[in-house]
């Protein structure tokens, strides 16, 4: 099945009088497959919102091509817009209109049946607040209203910029379930731009990370995390005195293996597989009490890839993320190392990937 969204070489430069031009998009590529929840991540100022705005025809681009449902946009956007629901940068509404009237006017303007208004109010949990004026809504309620208007058209493609912004924990949970239901049960393709990385990790099937207007990496969330987690193992023993002996045993068995004692554990790198460690130690008469495959979460992978990890005594400035060379292909996602060192290691890795 062809991608729902295809973006190639997208460029956008903001030019202002008496200021340096700013390349918001510098040859960005993006592909989103059908029926997935796709995360679109990047540091502040990396071009996420600019990309979404360009896709939706709100801004003109200086180069590159964009396609949605195979149709070139923005030229043919009017033909496909009926299949797209979108929220860009927390849209504001007339403060004195009720939530219901806001949705009714949008529905009427696009010929959407009136029944859809009540349906989306129910779906987003705004049924009881529908009569109230928007000025009395909290940030989270306004966000729900924004998502409700995006759902009005029963879209095949849902584009959401920071959908969890302002939502309470129950709201975030509800939103996650709703989006996953839409994607996996209803076949809706969902693109989510967010800075809540733990949320993206739980919600998204695939993702694209961008920096300074270019793609750094894309692929399945699990594979990207696994691909950047390395193969380090944390090994503990019933008796801490065994640590030096165990390190020697491993290094002697395979010189390329690294074994470093850290407090009450041994950190092993370069081991072919977890089972090799347990076997080698057992052969040396040393029995371990715990073996854990050390995996990273999305936050640490993101910070590493974008070069925005905070350094002691320094503040990372906006726009100081990693620059991707002009000719660089997106980072290949290595095949994940599958830990087979027992149920504990596997559970930990899966937990991290979830």
């Amino acid at each position, binding site marked *: 099945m062809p991608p729902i969204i295809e973006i190639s070489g997208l460029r956008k430069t903001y030019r202002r009088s008496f200021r340096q031009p700013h390349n918001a998009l510098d040859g960005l590529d993006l592909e989103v497959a059908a029926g997935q929840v796709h995360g679109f991540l990047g540091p502040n100022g990396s071009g996420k919102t600019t990309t979404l*705005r360009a896709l*939706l*025809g*709100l*801004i*003109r681009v200086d180069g590159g091509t964009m396609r949605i449902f195979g149709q070139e946009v*923005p030229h043919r*956007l*009017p033909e496909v*817009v009926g299949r797209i629901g*979108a929220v*860009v*940068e*927390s*849209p*504001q*509404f*007339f*403060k*004195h*209109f009720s939530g219901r*009237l806001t949705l009714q*006017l*949008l529905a*009427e*303007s*696009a*010929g959407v049946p009136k029944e859809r208004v009540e349906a989306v109010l129910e779906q987003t949990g705004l049924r009881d607040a529908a009569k109230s004026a928007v000025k009395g809504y909290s940030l989270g309620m306004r966000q729900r209203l924004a998502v409700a*208007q995006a759902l009005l058209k029963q879209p095949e493609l849902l584009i959401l910029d920071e959908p969890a912004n302002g939502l309470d924990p129950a709201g975030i949970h509800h939103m996650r379930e709703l989006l996953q239901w839409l994607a996996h049960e209803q076949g809706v393709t969902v693109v989510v731009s967010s800075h809540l990385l733990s949320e993206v990790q739980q919600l998204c099937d695939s993702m694209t990370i961008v920096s300074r207007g270019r793609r750094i990496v894309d692929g399945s969330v699990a594979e990207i995390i696994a691909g950047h987690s390395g193969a380090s193992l944390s090994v503990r023993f019933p008796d801490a005195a065994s640590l030096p002996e165990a390190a020697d045993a491993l290094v002697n068995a395979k010189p390329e293996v690294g074994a470093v004692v850290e407090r009450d554990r041994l950190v092993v790198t370069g081991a072919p597989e977890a089972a090799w460690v347990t076997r080698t130690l057992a052969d040396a008469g040393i029995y371990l009490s715990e073996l854990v495959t050390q995996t990273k979460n999305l936050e640490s992978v993101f910070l590493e890839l974008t070069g925005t990890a905070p350094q002691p005594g320094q503040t990372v400035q906006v726009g100081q993320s990693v620059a991707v060379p002009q000719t660089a292909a997106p980072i290949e996602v290595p095949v994940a190392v599958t830990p087979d060192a027992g149920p504990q290691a596997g559970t930990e890795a899966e937990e991290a990937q979830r």
Partner: protein
Amino acid sequence: MNLFKAELRRIARRRLTLVFGILLLAGVVGLAVILASISTEGPDEAALAEAQAQADEMNEQNPDYLDCVEDESYFEDNEMYGWVETDPEYEGMSHKEACEHAVGGWWAEDFLWTYTFDFADEGPFLIVGVMIVAGLVMMLLGSSAIGAEWSSGGMSNLMVWHPNRMRLWGAKLGAALTACAAGVVVLAALAFGLLVLVASLRGEVGVLNGVWWEDTLELVLRTGVLALGMTLLGASLAMLGRHTAIAGGVIAGYLIIGELIVNMVSMNLSMDFPERLSLYTWVGAWITGRIELVGGYTGFNDMTPDVMVITWSDAGALLGGIVLLFAALATWSFQRRDAA
């Protein structure tokens, strides 16, 4: 059509529309009430008698007047009033009346204040006044309908729903102009009905013949077009500035500072007909149909001043050109500029 209807409904449901609507209705009703309270068909016998008594009382206290009334040869004997004998205005007056006029006696009319509202004479100009105020309010409403959408972020959201910007702009403009036309027509009809009612109850309706209807309809029609033009201008300025305050600021700025500059320029430049620099002159010509500007004398011996005639078609061409220019700029801007 759905978009147009939704935009019309959006304007109708705005709180500003409600507030302006109430204020305009209250204004028209208030005008009728004031006219009804000050207009009378004429003093009754008792009021006339009371006024005459007051005038007589005052005259009794004026010795010159008393001398004049008592002395039939007062004007002949008194050099100061010798001219009365020859002034044609005093021809046919009784001696007492001549004394009242020349020496300054009091009349019953001095103690009566009566105003009779004549609809045929004054009605059309009052209706035009109501329409101009309604047009100004509609201009604010039209600019707010565009400006508030931009400043609230609602415009971007609407553009996500309707990416064809010309269609969106057309629907918004159409809705603003329709609301303006409906508002102006309703207020003009209400003003017409109330003023006729006031005239028939407390004044004079006058003669509403074919000529009156023709003149009045022309006046009202041109004022209605002016109101639509103002709405279009307000909406276009709001689209260009992307804020209601920009439109309001430009218009208020012109009305205050612009006119001041025009007056200063006209005083310091030795140009003929400096009034033509002011838009008010052209607006006046558009509404009344014709305006004459009187200039200086052409020569030393020629006592006939230059006259510049501005007709409604001249004024329409200039004012229409200005409005269409801003509308075209707004259209170009909306089509080309990024949504912030």
